[in-house]
């Protein structure tokens, strides 16, 4: 397919920042996958003789207010953050791509209704919409994940609709129509594969956004609840001790930042490699 063409791959390989991003993401996956083997302690094991200890040889990143090992909690937190990123992007893709494609291909009333719907969703700043959804569905990690995913739907609808609009009058589509290919086949087999580049780029960047927002919800107390080792929630718990034990706040923040940075670097690299027009 056009996507994995050699030129794009070569360009991606030459992009040092993108390689850094990819290496970081792969390492994070390995850490998440093998968390029980890598984590030096049990992330839930409290130890009241060792609360709020600074980094030491025993606890490399120190302990939190309940004496739990911060490093182990961050390692298990990688599982949660990656899950959040992928699940919420999957929600955005599963709903946004078909709706955007149909809206763009058929136009007319379906398109108008979809566009007004997108307008309304976009009338709310993303974080605010996520908060509203959590407020209605109830606080918790799963609902936060769903909320962040739902918020990304209009972006995908717009993106795919735009791509389909620019392709639907191309000759290969006309040709497929002329020989009587079914419309659903035209949309999903002929047109959509050509829209993959922007979708992939957007998804990579969106994973970073989703992780950031879900951590924000966790920080506000609307996402993951104690004792789940979600990075935003760990950070929020450490907040009360920032004067005496700032490591409980500092390290989860760095973990979030590096992860988001990794996905952003990959997304930027993919954009440069796959879609030179989108470069900015």
């Amino acid at each position, binding site marked *: 397919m056009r996507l994995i063409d050699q030129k794009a791959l070569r360009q991606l390989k030459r992009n040092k920042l993108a390689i850094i991003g990819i290496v970081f993401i792969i390492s994070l996956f390995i850490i998440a996958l093998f968390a029980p083997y890598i984590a030096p302690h049990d992330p839930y094991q409290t130890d009241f003789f060792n609360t709020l200890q600074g980094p030491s040889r025993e606890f490399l990143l120190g302990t939190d207010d309940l004496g739990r090992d911060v490093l182990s909690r961050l390692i298990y937190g990688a599982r949660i953050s990656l899950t959040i990123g992928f699940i919420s992007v999957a929600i955005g893709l599963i709903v946004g791509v078909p709706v955007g494609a149909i809206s763009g291909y058929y136009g007319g009333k379906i398109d108008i209704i979809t566009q007004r719907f997108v307008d309304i969703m976009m009338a*709310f700043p993303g974080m605010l919409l996520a*908060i509203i959804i959590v407020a209605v569905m109830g606080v918790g990690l799963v609902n936060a994940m769903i909320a962040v995913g739902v918020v990304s739907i209009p972006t995908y609808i717009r993106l795919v609709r735009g791509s389909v609009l620019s392709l639907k009058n191309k000759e290969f589509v006309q040709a497929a129509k002329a020989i009587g290919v079914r419309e659903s086949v035209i949309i999903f087999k002929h047109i959509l594969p050509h829209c993959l580049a922007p979708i992939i780029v957007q998804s990579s960047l969106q994973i970073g956004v989703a992780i950031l927002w879900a*951590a924000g919800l966790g920080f506000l107390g609307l996402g993951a609840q104690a004792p789940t080792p979600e990075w935003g929630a760990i950070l929020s718990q450490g*907040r009360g001790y920032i004067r005496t034990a700032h490591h409980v*706040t500092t390290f989860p*923040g760095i973990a979030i930042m590096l992860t*988001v940075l990794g996905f952003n670097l990959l997304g930027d690299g993919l954009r440069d490699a796959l879609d030179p027009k989108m470069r900015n």
Partner: protein
Amino acid sequence: MSSYILRRLLLLIPVLIGVAIIVFGMVRLLPGDPAVAMAGVHATPQYIAQVRAELGLDEPIHVQFGVFVNRLFEGDLGISTRTRRPAAQEIWPRFKNTVYLTAIALFIASLVGITAGVISSVKPYSIYDQIVMLFSLFGVAAPVFWLGLILMLIFSVNLGWFPSSGMGTPLHFVLPAVTLAANSTALIARMTRSSMLEVLKNDYITTARAKGLKEKVIIIKHALRNALIPITTILGLRFGMLLGGAVLTETVFSWPGVGRLMVDSILARDYPVVQGSVLLLALMFVLINLFVDILYAFLDPQISYS
């Protein structure tokens, strides 16, 4: 032009109705009785009955929506279940605090972001450019709430330069505004740089140089003016991100804004205040975007208004 503005205003109507439906629907979608949600779990049966009557909950849903919209036009957002004061009175002063914070943050982000971006674009791939781009990469990825706590730790707890929470003096604005601005500053710097690099390639820049104009004049008068057009749209989008980020910043710095009020109200199940806060924030976002779109049309003569 005026037909373009008119069309934009007409498109505003379905959006506003949609926003009203979402805010109205929020409370109806909650599990349990909306009258209890609006009156509060500890309300007396009499008060719950009174709220039920006021909301018209025994009427069909479209009548309820009519009652809701009518009350909105009267500025009636219901009674806070926590303070028993009108929700509008709770929200309004907090909303103003959020607007101050957001406006200052946007100002900082535009000023610093555009300046850094322009200098970067003049000397691309220089050491200065690389430092700016590195900062902007981290600036985009850093969680707002974490950045706020780190700034608080350094400049308030350790150095004691700025107060760590609340508002009152101009000094109180510094840390929250800088925290909130950081993300947008980074993005605006990147946008400005790429937009400027694009513009600087044009023939009229070469012509201006050939004419022997001063570099400063070329950069500011010829290049930046044109580069600013795409940046304007970004500023509008950033405003929404700032409103979202304000919720987090306000929580970090105990800033008495509407974002924090909204989150506190969600956790306390004070739904009239949640509804009012959401409505006001969305309304503001919609109006700012409208303003930016119209401004964009003014700035860019190439855009078609049809």
